[in-house]
């Protein structure tokens, strides 16, 4: 029983809450950006978006492009859904979210095809798969539907960046150890190869992405004890 139940029935309700204008980058708003980078990372903590993290982290470049595309799609669709949140009929809200995300993705795809053709060929089906990326729909449903435009925008950027950050970290190690390159340029000098060093071909296969993500989760949790489950 909480103490509030003991209040007399006649107690006046608080009618006026002085509305304070929240600064654009208040502590709360900054947390929307920074939380997903660590404490609430979509991949390593919420375990969302794993599928694409496995698929496009063989090389750094597609991983970076994918991250940027997801940031664009998430920020835009979060803003749109948040703008429409008082208009969307509750019964078809998931469909509306899908339509918004899908059209954002098609836009990104069309623009890539015109201005970054090679990248669009490389990402091919994965661009389409942004639609099915659980993070996007998850944030729309959990955040944008109930929060203001600015907050939703930050939340979209934050979560997409948290996702992209992991993608880039994983891709960095996979490309480095798997092909001895970064962004397509050889970084491991020939000398080391001559001494008998061999690229680890296993790094190019998706299981190693899972293991790399696993190692990251391990490191993250040993640093950030809050994340460890109690039981």
């Amino acid at each position, binding site marked *: 029983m909480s103490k509030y139940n003991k209040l007399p029935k006649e107690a006046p309700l608080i009618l006026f809450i002085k509305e304070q204008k929240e600064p654009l980058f208040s502590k709360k708003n900054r947390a929307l950006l920074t939380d997903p980078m660590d404490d609430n990372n979509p991949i390593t903590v919420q375990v969302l978006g794993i599928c694409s993290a496995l*698929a496009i982290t063989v090389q750094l470049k597609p991983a970076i492009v994918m991250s940027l595309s997801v940031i664009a799609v998430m920020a835009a669709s979060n803003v749109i859904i948040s703008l429409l949140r008082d*208009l*969307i*009929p*509750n*019964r*078809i809200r998931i*469909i*509306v979210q899908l*339509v918004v995300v899908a*059209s954002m993705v*098609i*836009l990104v795809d*069309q*623009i890539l*095809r*015109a*201005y970054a*053709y*090679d990248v669009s060929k490389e990402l091919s*089906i994965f661009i389409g798969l942004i639609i099915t990326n659980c993070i996007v729909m998850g944030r729309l449903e959990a955040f944008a539907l109930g929060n203001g435009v600015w907050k939703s925008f930050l939340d979209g950027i934050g979560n997409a960046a948290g996702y992209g950050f992991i993608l880039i970290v994983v891709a960095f190690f996979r490309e480095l150890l798997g092909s001895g390159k970064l962004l397509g340029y050889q970084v491991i000098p020939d000398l080391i190869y001559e001494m008998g060093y061999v690229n680890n071909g296993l790094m190019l296969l998706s299981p190693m992405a899972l293991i790399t993500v696993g190692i990251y989760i391990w490191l993250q949790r040993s640093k950030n004890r809050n994340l460890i489950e109690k039981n």
Partner: protein
Amino acid sequence: MDRDSNAYTFLFSAIMVLLVAATLSVTATSLQDIQDENVRKEKMQNILATIGVNVEREKAPEVYKKYIIDELALVSDGSIDKNTDAFTLKLNLEIKKPIKEQRFPLYLAEVDSLKYYIVPLRGVGLWDAIWGYVALEGDKNTIKGAVFDHKGETAGLGAEITQEWFQDSFTGEKVFNENGDLVGINVSKTNNDPKGLDKNDHEVDAISGATITGDGVTDMIKERLQNYLSYFKSKNELIAYQNN
């Protein structure tokens, strides 16, 4: 208006659908030209790759002009249709026409005074269309190089046909047998020569897990080349089988 009423829901969806459709079609139409240009350059790039000329996409049109000396649109009897532009022919549409009305594009290239015949290919893989180009040397028998691409083959399996190691295995293979019959190249699972050292076996090693895509490649090479036989023969140059 009540946000949960049927009328509102219908109205909302109707407006949403119209807006989305308008935005998307405006974007798609306005970017169309740039996208088509990319596809055109990539086609040139692919054609050049079959004769061993590797070039960046942006420079492809220049280099293409230098090496490709002629583009022919052939009729099934081997004559040349001068009124059709071979480069812009769409094979996916041609294939559906009756054989007499089809036009078969052929690209003639000359590199270091060696002549090459480049034949565009189109067929079906497991999920969707596959296509490519194959370049024959002056004897119209030995493959100089091949390039393949696909629309939706499985990544890591069928999609591997776009990889150089697979395409390179076609180089040097012969498409005619000793009797001068067209046999094409068999993408074979029972190849005794996985390294592709035997260039007279009309076989290349298949990709594990990509049987149907591989069969598609086999079929498409033979089917498409079939249509060029009358032209090759009409040129009165014997299809020489050199047992080397």
